[in-house]
């Protein structure tokens, strides 16, 4: 469960605090009450993003649990900007900073990608890999990576399946895909979940801070 303390000053109500999830949640199974929370400028918006379990078709994978700190996230295989299949398991053995972003070539996402690019050496020094995920297709990622000289992998989450599976919350009453970053340690366990839609550069600072402690 994401918990946040709302600051007292009215002006700072709109600032996005760090979104840290609480200790490990129970094993994943379908739950009616599992709502997604979005830390949009510090105001918690709760939207139930689950289908009614009584209508749920037979699914081969469990899609209802949100990935939180302490979880081992479900694996996935997605295409990167060169069209090659990349699995999350490929990165086991080293920390991974996996950042979900709304779309290529939008101002916030560009700022975020460039911020990760500019701090890439620091991530490498910490032994970590940086991976971006959005719903754009590989050719869009390729153009985006080329234009901004991004040295890291961008994955195409076709149909936003992984985003939904991991429970990345949306913003502004479901109109915007959320901007959420996960830091996964070398054992494949999530150690940080950070959400901030409109201050994208903060994702770099927060993840680097966490990596120093790993």
């Amino acid at each position: 469960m994401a918990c946040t303390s709302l600051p007292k000053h009215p002006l700072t109500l709109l600032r996005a605090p760090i979104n840290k999830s609480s200790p490990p949640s129970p094993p994943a199974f379908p739950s009616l009450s599992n709502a997604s929370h979005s830390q949009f400028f510090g105001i918690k918006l709760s939207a139930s993003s689950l289908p009614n379990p009584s209508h749920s078709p037979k699914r081969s994978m469990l899609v209802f649990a949100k990935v939180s700190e302490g979880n081992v996230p479900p694996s996935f295989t997605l295409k990167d900007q060169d069209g090659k299949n990349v699995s999350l398991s490929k990165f086991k053995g080293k920390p991974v900073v996996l950042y979900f972003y709304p779309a290529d070539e939008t101002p916030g996402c560009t700022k975020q990608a460039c911020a990760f690019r500019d701090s890439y050496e620091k991530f490498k020094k910490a032994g970590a890999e940086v991976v971006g995920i959005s719903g754009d297709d590989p050719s869009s990622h390729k153009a985006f990576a080329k234009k901004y000289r991004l040295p890291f992998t961008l994955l195409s989450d076709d149909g936003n399946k992984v985003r939904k599976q991991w429970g990345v919350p949306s913003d502004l009453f479901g109109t915007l895909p959320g901007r959420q970053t996960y830091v996964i340690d070398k054992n494949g366990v999530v150690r940080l979940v950070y959400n901030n839609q409109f201050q994208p550069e903060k994702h770099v600072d927060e993840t680097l801070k966490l990596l120093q402690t790993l």
Partner: protein
Amino acid sequence: MYTLTPHSLSTAPDAFRLRRRSRPCRAAIATRPSTTSPHHTDDTPMKPTNVAIDDPTSLRSTWSQKAWVASGFVSILTPLAKSAVAAADSGSVFEPLLAAYAGYVLADLASGVFHWAVDNYGGPSTPVFGSQIEAFQGHHRWPWTITRREFANNLHPLARAVIFSVLPIEALLDVTEAGAAAHAFVGTCAGCVMLSQQFHAWAHEKARRVPRAVAALQAAGVLVSRQMHGAHHRPPYNINYCIVSGAWNGVLDEYKVFEAMEMILFFRFAVRPRSWSEPRPEWREEEEEEAEEAAAL
């Protein structure tokens, strides 16, 4: 859950991808009407013309423009007069003054929203707003031209908008026998909206040519200043949209209100705002001296 990413849109996804990646969105000024759909980026081939150099008589106020602006003043002063009379009758001035202040504050916000919308969306062929969109794009390239326009020439489009908005609202207020505060709000808000283009022109005027009283009001933050508005005139033209007092600019920009709206429109309708791309070279701002030298060649 959130709506589909732009690439999942079922209507012509390939065309969309092509449009997104082919070139940055750019402003277009048409020398002839475009037949492009108004819902998409207007890519009408353009040949920007600076009327200040090519057709300076077009900057002078015509009689019809003067008539519109005069009517605009009537439509603003009428509710203000009604408010003054009602306030005198009731003996209370605090409420109408507060309402007038609220009108002034709202006008600043409204100017920003309108400015943001026409700067970023539509084109010359957009119904109703096409000519305004065209004019705003030309203004980015030649910002100093606004200082060469005569008063009514500058204000007449806003005067029209104000007249057609105020008339029905005032009719409603009369029918409901609204008090002094309501009329004060309407008159002040409409007045600030209509005069916003003059405030805008003063924000472009050289400091020594601005009347001293205006300069004082700009320095006090009552009217938008040259510095505040100058920050808008830097590519990609995505901040400081408000042009009455500019008081809303800080809040709107700090909390990325326009960026949020742009993202929503992008994900809902697959429309990119112009401010997400750098302007093309032929649309870069041209200094007054530069334009005059180019014309002399």
